[in-house]
């Protein structure tokens, strides 16, 4: 070559391997932690100790209309959220993740654009996996931007219920964000729910298939047999994560907003709000709108949704 090699060319191998590595550590590891955490909104039901802080003297849990099962689910999830928020150097963890995702995304798009999908002519399963890996990357990237924007950076313009994210009310705000409304689904909520299903499914596929191809790229699985065996492991990982991701989604979509709100209030020490929500639900079913203003989370609840 007559021209001087570019930065990309000089560090070609290192950049390619870093692209592969960042997909697993930290992004993939975070994905596993994130999905298992979120699935506690369903699987928290088997966490017998989660409702203990809400137990009355007689041992019965009754917060608003919420019973034992819901208290365990919301209790576990809120506990996980609080745990993450109390992590030391959380901002460093966040920055590391954002930088890794940005690196993986920028180089990923560039690498994806270096190929031309040809599944029409060569309709092999492996070729479909290759093409799907690229498409799920694009979809996943857009989804992550939307997801972080609305739930972390406080964008409300893409949020049908206009409600900003609140850590103390993680369960209820997430349910409202996904449905687009505190109670029944709104049209915007249907879109958000579909977007989440597509985004989560895409990212899990992208991760599971990425772990499979990374083993070939790094030379861990060499023989066809080894690649096949590792393929089953990765498929298992993918299906397990799909189970976690989909159950989290279903759990939040089915979550009773007011009941979750009462549990959160009881857990995080805002008893006044817990009472007000109960009153709103029981005494004024036909009041159109009632505003409850908290320290920094403006919140709107509508009567008559229950």
């Amino acid at each position, binding site marked *: *070559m*007559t021209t001087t*090699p570019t930065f*990309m*060319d000089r560090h*070609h*191998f*290192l950049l*390619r*391997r870093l692209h592969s590595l960042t997909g697993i550590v930290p992004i993939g590891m975070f994905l596993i932690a994130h999905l298992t955490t979120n699935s506690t909104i369903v699987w928290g039901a088997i966490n017998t100790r989660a409702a203990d802080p809400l137990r009355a003297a007689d041992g019965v849990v009754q917060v608003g209309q919420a019973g034992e099962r819901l208290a365990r689910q919301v209790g576990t999830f809120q506990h996980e959220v609080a745990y993450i928020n109390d992590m030391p150097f959380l901002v460093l963890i966040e920055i590391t993740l954002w930088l890794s995702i940005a690196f993986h995304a920028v180089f990923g798009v560039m*690498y994806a654009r*270096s*190929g*031309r*999908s*040809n599944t029409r*002519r*060569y309709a*092999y399963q*492996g*070729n479909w*996996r*290759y*093409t799907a*890996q690229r498409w799920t990357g694009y979809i996943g990237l857009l989804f992550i931007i939307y997801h972080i924007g609305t739930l972390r950076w406080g964008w409300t313009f893409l949020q049908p219920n206009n409600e900003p994210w609140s850590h103390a009310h993680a369960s209820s705000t997430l349910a409202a964000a996904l449905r687009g409304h505190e109670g029944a689904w709104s049209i915007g909520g249907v879109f958000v729910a579909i977007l989440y299903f597509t985004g989560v499914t895409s990212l899990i596929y992208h991760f599971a298939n990425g772990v499979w*191809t990374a083993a*070939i*790229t*790094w*030379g*861990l*699985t*060499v*023989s*066809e047999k080894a*690649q096949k065996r590792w393929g089953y492991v990765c498929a298992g990982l993918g299906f397990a994560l799909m189970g976690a991701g989909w159950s989290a989604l279903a759990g939040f979509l089915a979550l009773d907003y007011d009941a979750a709100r009462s549990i959160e209030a009881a857990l995080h020490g805002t008893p006044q709000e817990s009472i007000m929500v109960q009153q709103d639900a029981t005494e004024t079913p036909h009041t159109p709108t009632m505003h409850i203003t908290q320290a920094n989370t403006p919140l709107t609840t509508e009567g008559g949704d229950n």
Partner: protein
Amino acid sequence: MSNTTTSIAQAGTRTVRFRIKRADGHKKNVRWEEYDVPVTSGSEGSGSANVISCLQHIAANPVTRHGERTTPITYDVGCLEEVCGSCTMLINGHVRQACSCLIDTCAPRDGDVITLEPMTKFPVIRDLWVDRARLFETLKRTSAWVPIDGTYHLGAGPMETPDEQQVRYKLSECMSCGCCLEACPQYLIEEDVENWDSAFVGAAVISQARYFNMHETGASTKKLRLDALSEAGGVSDCGNAQNCVKACPKEIPLTESIAAMGRAVTVHKIKQFFSGQ
């Protein structure tokens, strides 16, 4: 013309229609032409027709099925027994050698159509003939040979274990036909020779690098091949679509070669990182 051939058709003879994509050069005057060719079934005792024999039939009297007189179709051909790879082309959309494509198998009924196109990953010289120079340049780029030149007689090489022979024999069957490259979504046509040094090398060359790295004498230049494969266009440009192994007419375990070279380059680069060499 077609009427004549049909009227003289005897038992066991049928007509196969060829749709051929022709061109005067790369993207020059690209056109489709159709020819009707009478073929006799192999079971009739006169031997099986293949795509090359049909192209020879057309060359003897190049008249399209519409009666238009044209020129013989240009194609590359060598061994006629699927070991040289010259006659590789797209037959009914799939890349393979024309010589080993038997008409009885790919067009068993009267009136069946066979579509012939040149490979898409190399510049067309004329009709079905493509220029695969890049493939051979890439073999040079990766030092895909055994160095035996010396200023004195080097004597016999070291012994090879039977296990290694088993693996290397299969790898040695590569004829650089380009089927794996044609099917690869990461290997794209590159007409600019300047870019050949940084464009993806493709499965065949990665497998050849493995073949020569496994050779007891070839291993002396292992480092050159691993360095070449770690650069832009090397083994890490593979996207793991694994079409190559499906398209290979010799059933060479190309995906194993890619993974093996991925491993070799990983180890080589880690060693290099710590040793600085």
